């Protein structure tokens, strides 16, 4: 009995002293609890669909943030991983008939492999060249996929009738949610610059800020850039493979320019170089814009999205999640701990915050 209490004592203590007093963290915990109890609130078709796809797109958006936000390799062709994952697993099912669990894992590996192979020409390019080069690969792959005969790779309409992830929508939702939470946690830990155990976060920051300086301090920047592409590739192709199975369709549109730009738009909307920003971006902007499809303004869906992105870039360049966090929290000038914005003194060192 006391062992069981001991197991819970550490998380409870963390919750009491590091989550409760910081409004941003408290909101994050509430948000994830909400996600887990969502099917209890409503299990109607459309909300479940929306939240399931949002979970998959969150993996996709966060992986773009790891590659482009954290390590600074601004990719405009993230749909390459997404589409390669989708097609990888769809082709395995089509020709070998393996179950989704196997094809998704293998599809993820295929997507990652293609992504890492294509990153080699990108490694020594300057920023605008890099973005435009990465934009080229999904377009090339899309054209190739469309020109392959229908019975080999689906042709123009893609590969249809893929098996579902699970029997019921609620089950599918929980599978996607758990995969999303685990992926986001892994990417969060990998990019955490203050971590004592993993150095990648710090190194990615160094490469983004000044690659030559990072190389001068003895970091093999090429290796870490490939690692960044690989990490982003794993999770983006995982999202693509699961998305294909969820929709029962792997289509050439998975490679489209729009698919790449959606990731960028969500992340910039929520807040670039912050994992929670990407999560917030998908769960607000994607849900809102997809909801617009049901209203009479459906034909203005893309226009509304572009106007939002222009306004965000002009007036809130740090992103909406970071903007809200800055309103709710304040960093203690002495001990760098975050405090609620309405506190008069720091919760740890009682330094004056006013």
């Amino acid at each position, binding site marked *: 009995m006391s062992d069981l209490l001991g197991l819970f004592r550490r998380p409870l203590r963390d919750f009491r002293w590091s989550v409760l007093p910081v409004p941003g963290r408290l909101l994050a915990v509430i948000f994830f609890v909400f996600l887990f109890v969502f099917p209890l609130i409503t299990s109607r078709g459309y909300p479940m669909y929306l939240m399931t796809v949002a979970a998959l797109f969150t993996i996709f958006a966060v992986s773009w943030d790891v590659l482009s936000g954290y390590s600074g390799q*601004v990719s405009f062709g993230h749909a390459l991983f997404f589409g390669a994952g989708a097609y990888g697993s769809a082709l395995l099912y089509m020709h070998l008939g393996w179950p989704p669990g196997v094809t998704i894992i293998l599809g993820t590996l295929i997507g990652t492999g293609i992504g890492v192979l294509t990153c080699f020409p990108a490694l020594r390019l*300057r920023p605008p060249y890099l973005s435009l080069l990465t934009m080229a690969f999904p377009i090339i792959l899309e054209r190739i996929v469309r020109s392959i005969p229908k019975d080999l790779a689906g042709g123009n309409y893609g590969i249809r009738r893929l098996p579902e992830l699970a029997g019921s929508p609620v089950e599918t939702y929980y599978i996607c949610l758990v995969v999303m939470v685990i992926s986001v946690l892994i990417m969060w830990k990998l990019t955490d610059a203050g971590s004592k155990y993993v150095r990648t976060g710090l190194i990615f920051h160094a490469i983004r800020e000044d690659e030559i300086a990072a190389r001068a301090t003895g970091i093999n920047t090429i290796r870490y850039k490939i690692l960044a592409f690989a990490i982003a590739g794993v999770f983006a192709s995982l999202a693509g493979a699961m998305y294909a199975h969820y929709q029962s369709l792997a289509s050439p549109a998975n490679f489209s320019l729009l698919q790449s730009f959606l990731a960028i738009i969500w992340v910039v909307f929520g807040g670039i170089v912050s994992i929670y920003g990407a999560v917030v971006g998908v769960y607000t902007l994607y849900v809102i814009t997809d909801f617009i499809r049901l209203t009479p303004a459906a034909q203005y869906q893309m226009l509304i999205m*572009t106007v939002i992105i222009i306004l965000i870039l002009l007036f809130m360049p740090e992103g909406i999640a970071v903007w809200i966090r800055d309103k709710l929290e304040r960093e203690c000038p002495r001990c760098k701990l975050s405090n609620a914005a309405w506190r008069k003194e720091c919760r740890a060192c009682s330094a004056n915050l006013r």
Partner: protein
Amino acid sequence: MIERIIVLTLVKGSTYAILASGLALIYGVGRIVNLAHTAFMMLAAYGIWYFAVSSGWGMIESIAVTVIGTGLLGLLIYRFLINRIREHHAAVLLMTIAIGMAIQEIIAPLFGSTPLNIPLLMKGTTMILGSPVRDQYLLTLGVATGFVILLWLLLSKTKLGIGIRAVAQDPEVANLMGVSVSRILMITVGIGTAMAAVAGIFLPPLEGGLVNYMWLPPLTMVLVVIIIGGLGSLKGAYIASFFVALIEGLAVTGFPTHGYLSNAFAMLAMVIVLVVRPQGMFGTMFEEERL
């Protein structure tokens, strides 16, 4: 067969040259990769259609009004939307693609989504070496050549051109020499967008009509052009225009049923050029511009 490839290369190449020189000019001076460039081209084409077909003006008047109007619009968009985020490459790329998509989405409800046709400026054909060539094609080639010469005269002979080149080389030093960098930038963006508008006269008939998403295929082609040529290099942009148009002509003739493969071949060429020369054929690497 071979005549057709040559004609297609020259005509497509010259429209790409008009588009790409505007894009290269804007990049060279402002370090802005304007992904909305061909959207402005499309907007101008719709403007010409609106004035010439819908309102019944003469072709020349409608072209003059749209080209100047598009230039001014580009200038205003630069001034109010791009200027303040100009330092961030990724933000500028995202902003310009958002502007392009906004233009596309504004056009859709205004003009519908059925393809429109811009009237040709010249209708006849001329026999050249035994094969018929449309006069419109000859005009395209002539206008492109004219613009190359005009742009060269502007950049090398006038005071404004010297200012533009000075800012392209080093904005800070140009500023110290008494050149108003912000004004030069605005003028360059205006000229570049107006050149995109000029391409709007010639490109839509070649692409088979005017629809609100027709800006994307030329955009990828023109991006390939300026990257192969080296970002910011006018000479590179001209040479690469015809190179890319040749690839497109070969792809269209070689795979007549898979016309969309031409983009893929052009992009493959771009990847190969970038692997061999990361700065493009005529681009320069500025060490101080590392990020």
